């Protein structure tokens, strides 16, 4: 009997000590976003600091019981560690890139995340301009804003598509081309300025077709073929429509089987969408398009 008793005693002691590890302990219940068992593991692992903090997360209620040593840490420090592995909570939003890398099943709905102000990006760019630049009459200012606003969505989708091609990512390119197509469809022609309107009429079918083709395939070579004509049309459009920031018209002599091909970029530095990492910096700027 004796050994059994002492064994039991030892087990009790062990269990006890494993619970008693956190001194000055405080427990809080906190809602933490997440979906599944994988989330549970990740959340609990992030909070598990020997003798300092630990958490148990409930998949049903999304509530975590967090126990921590109030002399060594605080609730926010634990919540920050949880957010840094991808899980939004009452105090912190996870970094976007960390959230995006979560397994598909863990991509919970980000309820606390607020939509970005559309104006914030516009405003962000106005610092570039000299204050003296605003001496147009009121009506023309309104007009230009309308034109650029409408077409900006098209240009922006084009630039994102280009960036994805630089990364040689056929899946993403297909998705981005879909967005581009949507942006093209959304343009209200009657709101465009006269000269832009004319060019748009001429180009819209070609633009749409290329966007559709890129969307329909995930074959990067095929996508890049269509990107050539897309870029050419886009160049003609941007020449009349203009954007706030300078746009760089760039050329790689090796693309298109040595015949060369162009593309547009917001940066002066060369990042080749036809070759990606294979020949990232092949090419040069042939024209800078400014307002």
């Amino acid at each position, binding site marked *: 009997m004796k050994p059994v008793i002492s064994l039991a005693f030892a087990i009790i002691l062990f269990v006890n000590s494993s619970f008693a590890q956190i001194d000055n302990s405080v427990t809080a219940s906190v809602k933490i976003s997440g979906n599944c068992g994988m989330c549970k593991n990740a959340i609990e692992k992030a909070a598990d600091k020997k003798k300092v903090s630990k958490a148990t997360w409930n998949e049903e209620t999304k509530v975590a019981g967090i126990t921590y040593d109030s002399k060594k840490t605080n609730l926010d420090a634990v919540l920050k560690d949880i957010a840094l592995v991808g899980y939004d909570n009452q105090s912190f939003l996870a*970094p976007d890139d960390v959230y995006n890398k979560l397994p598909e099943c863990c991509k919970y709905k980000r309820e606390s*995340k607020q939509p970005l102000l559309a104006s914030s990006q516009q405003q962000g760019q106005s*610092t570039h301009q000299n204050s003296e630049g605003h001496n147009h009459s009121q009506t023309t200012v309104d007009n230009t804003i309308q034109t650029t606003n409408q077409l900006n969505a098209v240009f922006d989708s084009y630039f994102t598509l280009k960036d994805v091609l630089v990364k040689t990512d056929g899946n993403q390119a297909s998705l981005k081309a879909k967005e581009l197509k949507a942006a093209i469809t959304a343009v209200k022609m009657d709101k465009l300025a006269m000269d832009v309107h004319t060019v748009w009429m001429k180009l819209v079918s070609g633009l749409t077709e290329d966007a559709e083709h890129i969307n329909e395939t995930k074959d990067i070579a095929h996508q890049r073929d269509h990107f050539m004509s897309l870029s050419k049309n886009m160049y003609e459009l941007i020449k009349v429509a203009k954007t706030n920031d300078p746009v760089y018209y760039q050329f790689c002599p090796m693309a298109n089987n040595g015949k060369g091909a162009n593309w547009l970029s917001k940066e002066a530095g060369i990042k080749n969408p036809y070759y990606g990492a294979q020949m990232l910096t092949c090419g040069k700027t042939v024209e800078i398009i400014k307002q």
Partner: protein
Amino acid sequence: MAIQKVIGKKLLSLTTIFTFVISTGYAQKLVRYDLYVKDTLVNFAGKEKRAIAANGQIPMPTLSFTEGDTAEIHVHNLLKEETSLHWHGLFLPNKEDGVPNLTQMPIKPGTTNVYRFPIIQHGTHWYHSHSGLQEQIGMYGSMILNKRPADIEKRKEVDGLPTVPLILSEWTNYKPDNVHRMLHNASDWFALKKNAVQSYGEAIRDGHFKTKLRNEWKRMLAMDVSDVYYDKILMNGKPESVIESVDGKKLKAGDKVRLRISNGAASSYFWLRYAGGKITVVANDGNDVTPVEVDRLIIAVSETYDIVLTIPAASTSYELLATTEDRTNSASVYIGNGIKQLISPLPRLKYFEGMKMMNDMMKMNGDLDDMGMNMSLNQMDMNVVMYPEITGEAKPKQKDDDPDRYNANALSDIVTLNYAMLKSPEKTTLPDAPVKVLQFELTGNMNRYVWSMNNKVVSETDKILVKKGENIRLIIYNGSMMRHPMHLHGHDFRVLNGQGEYAPLKNIIDIMPMETDTLEFNANVEGDWFFHCHILYHMMSGMGRVFSYKDQQPNPLIPNPKLAQRKLFADDRKMHFMFQNDFATNGNDGEMMLQNTRWSIGSEWRLGYNDMHGYETETHIGRYIGKMQWLMPFIGFDWRYRNMALHAEEKNMFGQSNTKNNRAVVSVGLNYTLPMLIRFQGEIFTDGIVRLQLMREDIPFTKRLRFAFMVNTDKEYMAGFNYIFSRAIALRTHYDSDMGFGVGLTFGY
């Protein structure tokens, strides 16, 4: 009657002062600050430690002035030691510059010093102690020089924004004197704390054994991007803080905030990154620049940057994260109201990629080879090979001849600021004047922590004489293995960065290894102006020069220039002490050493527990020669006593016999560091005996385990292991040909 008269006079003078202040009112206001500098105890990282505060604050209070004001700053020294305050980046008369023993005598304990100077510029600056290592423990603060109201109108989109000064710093629980001493003794304790030992074990695990071998063959200790491990990073004295409102106005979505950021750290560079989008850089070192949008920037020690951030969504605050260059620590400030949007921390450095890169750059003689890349202005950053966010987590696929292989902006979507992107909004050309060209090489070696310019430290050189009115052009090449933020007192220089007439004005330039930068300034204020590396421990090691104007008026605050110079030179002549002893079962092994830039006085001993094992000491006084300091000739003194009946005489490998039983001799010899960092020692004693010896004590097998060995021509040998527990304690086991096998504890200081 007499009393009345005196009071009357006093009243009169008081009214004159009063009217003076009033009448000059707006244009020339006198702004007075009183700073009470006092010892204090702080707890930044779990332990109560000594620090220095001004008016009870760390950082010291933010001093604000408007261009055109006259500053009057009363510094009351309530410390038990001397102090001083330097106004970093300010144009002022030389005697107000605050460099002790150069522009003024130190402020003695219990006295008050008044600095008084007109404010003739605007911008973000800071101030700090220039005495010893006081800056490390709290003596830094923001100094904001506002534009005149009329000038604010000219750039209202920036200057009209809500503005917050932020000063960055670091904290270590070690005393800064101790940090300095450990650096000079090549302690790898900081590397251990940072998990950056880069041992053979780790090299093998990561498939980099050859890299490590080649690195040691080229006589390099494991490299890191910074020297010191810090316990905490602080922004305005806090590791985490929130900016919810500015000037009483709550921040909301769409608002922009301008941060005036100074890097008041002693030795840390910081990456600045923002969770809410792009960072717009609008000024640098107190000078406006044409706004430029970036994803991140590194702020060198003592630089200042003004950045504009936008709050892009409602009910959210966005993290501005300042990460040390070695990525071991960071501080955050959240801007806005609401839930905190984080930005992901920077991933750990790929140290062995960095080691490989250094191997390629280092020639066998210790010179660096840039392989024809002509690097400058931080555009090419060799360290990108270590940055997973730029070159990927895996091994880089870049070809060796790609001209862009170190260009972070070409390799990734992340836009990193470099000096070529800075442009002054106004022309900065210098007045037409004769040009004096000065070339400098930044030099140094990590193994002995010696930092210098043209291989000379401050105390080994004369002041550089310049003529008032001439233009000085500095061409600086960094031939050392660390980056250095070089700071010029009292002047701004133009950085020739390809922006032509619009070259940006700065007073600090960070120069990375192998870069060459060209700066120019007009010599327009007489005085003795310090030009030095702003990494505190490099400066204290003597990495600097003094520019002095020809035929200038003597400085009334330096009554005895010779004494002042001697005290100034004492900084880099300081001897650093180290001691260690192994208390082992077979005896005591130990050494102690005093060394500075060139000299070394060292004693080693082996003390047995009985006469048969014997007792011996060797003392060497030597001088290090050359840039890499691999060679050290010395004179020595040996004493041994042993009582050993059996082997009364021993023969060495050259057939010379030696009793070793009671020997006291003088010697001459030399130490030379061989490839693989093995120390060769050749010595000839007055009794004609020659001894050659090979030895190395710090071969890193794993993160904490070191292997040591020694063999010599007296047929003595030793081999052993050290396991490092803490900074001061290691477990040692070794076998010694004289004393046999032993286990013990080593205590070091």
